[in-house]
């Protein structure tokens, strides 16, 4: 009887041990889910990004584990500054507008005048297109700048005397954080739509005069490669779960004649 009990006890112990080992092993085998990223892109990968943070126990953004993009805005004004004067052509006088400074997001801003100060890099004499010595990663072929299809060149936008700014039609300076004022020089209709909130993106308060963060032009568009790659394609978020009982969605791809995969150029 005693023996039996001992054997039984041993068996139980062994089983538990084996079970424990197995559980441990399977826990290791299980693919670990990717953690929620802390550095998330806002609209397009490679343009504005935001750092996920807890502020007063609340998270400023939630991000996608799949793609690394922002999925949810807790604090829509995180890291923004006042847009500056924003006249509203409406029956209310003031619209509280903020933007995210572009200068903190730019790859080569240290600031520009660090080098483009007239002595280290001399000021250009005129606006005539010429081969660039630097920044070919931004503009690969400066003699064939596609923006405006040859009608304009770098210095129609970049201020030759103060490279930390853009330049307007009258030679006045435009902040790098307010590119809409520059782009609006030519793209008047889009600018007007943007001002009405139809084009582009605003987050925060929808209310009349409510505080909004405005996305500025260069947070979505890259002016230097606008003809070749208007937008950066992005990875889509997960597809919904299939309806119960469905094994696949092959029936949807009945007319599979389209080119597979992505598109370099999209017909927007």
């Amino acid at each position, binding site marked *: 009887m005693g023996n039996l009990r001992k054997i039984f006890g041993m068996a139980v112990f062994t089983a538990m041990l084996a079970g424990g080992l197995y559980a441990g092993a399977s826990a290791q085998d299980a693919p670990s889910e990717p953690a929620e990223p802390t550095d998330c892109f806002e609209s397009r990968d490679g343009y504005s990004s935001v750092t996920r943070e807890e502020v007063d126990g609340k998270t400023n953004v939630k991000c996608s584990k799949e793609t690394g993009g922002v999925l949810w805005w807790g604090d829509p004004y995180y890291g923004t500054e006042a847009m500056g004067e924003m006249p509203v052509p409406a029956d209310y006088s003031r619209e509280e507008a903020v933007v995210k400074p572009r200068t903190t997001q730019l790859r080569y801003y240290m600031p520009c005048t660090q080098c483009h100060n007239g002595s280290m890099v001399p000021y250009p004499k005129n606006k005539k297109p010429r081969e660039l010595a630097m920044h070919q990663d931004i503009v690969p072929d400066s003699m064939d700048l596609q923006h405006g299809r040859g009608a304009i060149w770098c210095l129609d936008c970049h201020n030759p005397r103060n490279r930390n700014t853009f330049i307007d039609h009258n030679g006045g300076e435009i902040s790098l954080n307010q590119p809409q004022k520059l782009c609006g020089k030519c793209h008047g209709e889009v600018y007007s739509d943007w001002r009405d909130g139809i084009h582009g993106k605003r987050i925060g308060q929808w209310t009349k005069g409510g505080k909004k963060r405005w996305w500025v032009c260069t947070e979505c568009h890259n002016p230097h490669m606008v003809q070749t790659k208007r937008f950066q394609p992005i990875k889509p978020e997960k597809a919904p779960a*299939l*309806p*119960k*009982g*469905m094994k696949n969605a*092959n*029936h*949807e791809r*009945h007319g599979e004649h389209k080119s597979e995969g992505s598109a370099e150029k999209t017909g927007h």
Partner: protein
Amino acid sequence: MRHKIQFAIDFVTYAVRGGPKFYLWMLGLGFFILLMSYGAFRQFTEGMIVTNYNDQVSWGLYEAQFVFLVGVAAAAVTVVFPSYVYHHKKLKEIVVLGEMLAIAAVFMVIIFIMFHMGRPDRLWHLLPVIGIFNWPNSMLTWDVLVLNGYLGLNAVCGFYYLYKRYSGQEVNKSFYMPLVYISIVWALSIHTVTAFLINTMPSRPMWFHSMMPIKFISTAFAAGPSMIIIAFLVIRKNTKLKIADEAIELLAQIVTWCLGIAIFLTIAEVVTELYPSTEHSFSLKYLMFGMHGLTGLVAWYWSSIVLMISAFILLLTPRFRKDHRFFLPLACAMTFAGIWIDKGMGLVVPAFIPTPIGELSEYTPSWIEIINSLGGWASGLFLFTLLVKGAVGVLLGDLKNGGEWEPIVISEESKEESYRG
């Protein structure tokens, strides 16, 4: 009052006693009811996740039974109407059996509604005064009204008649006849409203046509009497109750013509939908031929068509229709099965495929759904058997308390001669 209680006691005691065949039948039904109680427990505790319903196909096997059984309930009128409007003597003698079927069918309808509900515990929200009854806006509230009203009408008519017979008294015609006429119209209304319940939703183009009520009624008046004929044949085989050939013959004719109309309406629908073949005919196309490799309902559809058409041909041929031994019950069973498919898996499910925004998916009932549905039917048949058995007892004169009504009995000897089956 004591008299009425005595009637109830006598009725129940008579109904639950029977021979070995009876007990075996009830035991068999009991088995399915037991299975259902497990399924119901799972569904009511875990929710409808135990079914294979989903956001794409949000109605399924339960609603199919619901729609079909409302038709069966309404079909009691095929017995009541000829009896009281055309004074068909032979049918009038046994009219109460039709009412018993209506009661059992509505009982099943209620069971399937309970399974249909996501929150059966909150059904009280429907009650006027303590809840909100969105009448007349919601078609569902109309359905609640007509179904409950129909249950009440049939229970009152049926049991009033049985009670009067039991006590050997004459029925009070000024009380009884208006109820009968109301119940005739009401029977049409329950199935019409059920048709309105689903055909008033343009979101489901397959349902969205004005032919739905008449198709519902014609199919119901084919499937319902089929079941009644089979029940009659079983009753007269196993009891001394005299169910005349004329009664069965009349019901068989009703089945024939209603089935014919149903087939005609089906053809009309198919032509109307498939000739222009718009996006709105996707559901019907999916049902008939499948779409993009999804063919889950195709076999169901065509088997239903084959069943209905062959049953119609059998019924049209007098030789077969009058063969109460084999061909009539066969044709009735085929009609019943064909319409059960046509109104169930062939009507409820495909309307959800594709979804209003074009998503195709397929639905197959889960095991829980199947056992719950079988159990729902078993419960209904259980009740039907008891009701019919008690009613037959009264008609036979086995159950009586004074007075003299002539029992509708046929002697064993004459049974062979006068019945064709």
